[in-house]
């Protein structure tokens, strides 16, 4: 992956230092007063060091103590923002009440717009931004596996096994998305469209990596997973119909068609076998699971509203 274009003094300083592997202490000084957009892009790049090679940046910097310090400052900032938006539900059981709760908290929907109204260019714009996640789909959740007890670990692997194609690379979900992008005339190289990504999209991705990378956030990561899966089947069906309406290629349609049925399974597994097992072992993690679930829905709502606003589309929540 290539380093993105800087979005302010912090990313200017960080990217220059990453290229020259300079001392990172002066970069730390730039964090106070950095804009959310600037800091969010920096955190996204620092997270990417854990996933893949960045051109011109030595691999050893993945574990550089000064960069980890910077990552921690930016992650604290993000976590504070996410927590300030969240109120824990009271008197609800995650396993029993989750789907009704999602129903009440689900926000603005891009799939509703794609289904009937979106233009081809809007869909391409959406695919470019979504590609930051879809091209590494399920990877943030993979960090959680070693942090779980036997039951929850086996249950999470049962779900992830399907995400990763059940042994067949041709069925691996992020590969299906890459095929869909290429067939639609887009570049499926990871990160090429990051300069087009809104702060909201970057924040959505950073939140998934934040929750995945830290053991203390394991229940939140799984709550996030549950909410993600639970808001996928029906929207994926709308995506299929919208993409067919616009004449997008079968490879791309196929990615969403796969998610109609896959996520009808995954949503049940996430709630019943995975979180069910986690909370039976450690009931005190329930609030974290809700925090992750809320964060997923809230960030998707922000992403969708930002995009719909940009296109001058009225919030379609009422017709969702």
């Amino acid at each position, binding site marked *: 992956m290539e380093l993105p274009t800087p979005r302010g003094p912090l990313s200017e300083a960080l990217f220059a230092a990453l290229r020259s592997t300079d001392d990172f202490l002066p970069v730390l000084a730039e964090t106070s007063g950095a804009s959310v957009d600037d800091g969010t892009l920096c955190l996204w790049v620092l997270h990417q060091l854990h996933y893949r090679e960045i051109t011109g940046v030595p691999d050893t910097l993945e574990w550089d103590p000064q960069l980890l310090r910077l990552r921690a400052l930016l992650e604290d900032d993000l976590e504070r923002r996410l927590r300030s938006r969240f109120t824990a539900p009271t008197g609800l059981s995650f396993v029993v009440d989750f*789907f009704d709760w999602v*129903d009440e908290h689900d926000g603005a929907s891009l799939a509703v717009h794609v289904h009937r109204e979106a233009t081809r260019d809007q869909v391409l714009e959406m695919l470019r931004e979504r590609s930051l996640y879809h091209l590494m789909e399920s990877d943030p959740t993979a960090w959680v596996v070693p942090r779980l007890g036997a039951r929850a670990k086996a249950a999470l692997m049962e*779900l992830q096994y399907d995400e990763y194609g*059940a042994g067949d690379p041709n069925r691996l979900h992020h590969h299906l998305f890459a095929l869909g992008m290429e067939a639609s005339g887009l570049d499926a190289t990871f990160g090429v469209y990051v300069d087009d990504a809104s702060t909201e999209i970057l924040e959505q991705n950073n939140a998934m990596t934040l929750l995945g990378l830290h053991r203390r956030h394991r229940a939140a990561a799984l709550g996030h997973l549950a909410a993600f899966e639970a808001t996928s089947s029906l929207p994926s069906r709308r995506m299929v119909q919208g993409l067919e309406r616009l004449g997008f290629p079968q490879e791309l349609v196929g990615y969403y068609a796969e998610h109609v*049925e896959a996520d*009808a*399974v995954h949503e*049940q*597994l996430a709630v019943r076998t995975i979180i069910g097992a986690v909370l039976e072992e450690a009931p005190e993690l329930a609030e974290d699971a809700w925090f992750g679930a809320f964060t997923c829905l809230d960030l998707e709502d922000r992403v969708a509203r930002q995009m719909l606003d940009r296109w001058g589309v009225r919030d379609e929540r009422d017709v969702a």
Partner: protein
Amino acid sequence: MSTPYDHPETIVCPGGPMLLRGRHVVGDADGVPHETTRPVTAVCRCERSASLPWCDGTHKVLPERLRPS
């Protein structure tokens, strides 16, 4: 520790599908056989899925009384 964990071949989800682990052949309403293709499959119980015999999440938008118990 000594008692084995429960790992059933089927899990009935209240209000939703039945999960089926492993390879099976499921007949639809017309008796046409469908083979499962993934490690765990959700079999529709509300009969309103657009992908019968598999669940596609449609049960979630049905009124309470039409959802399978």
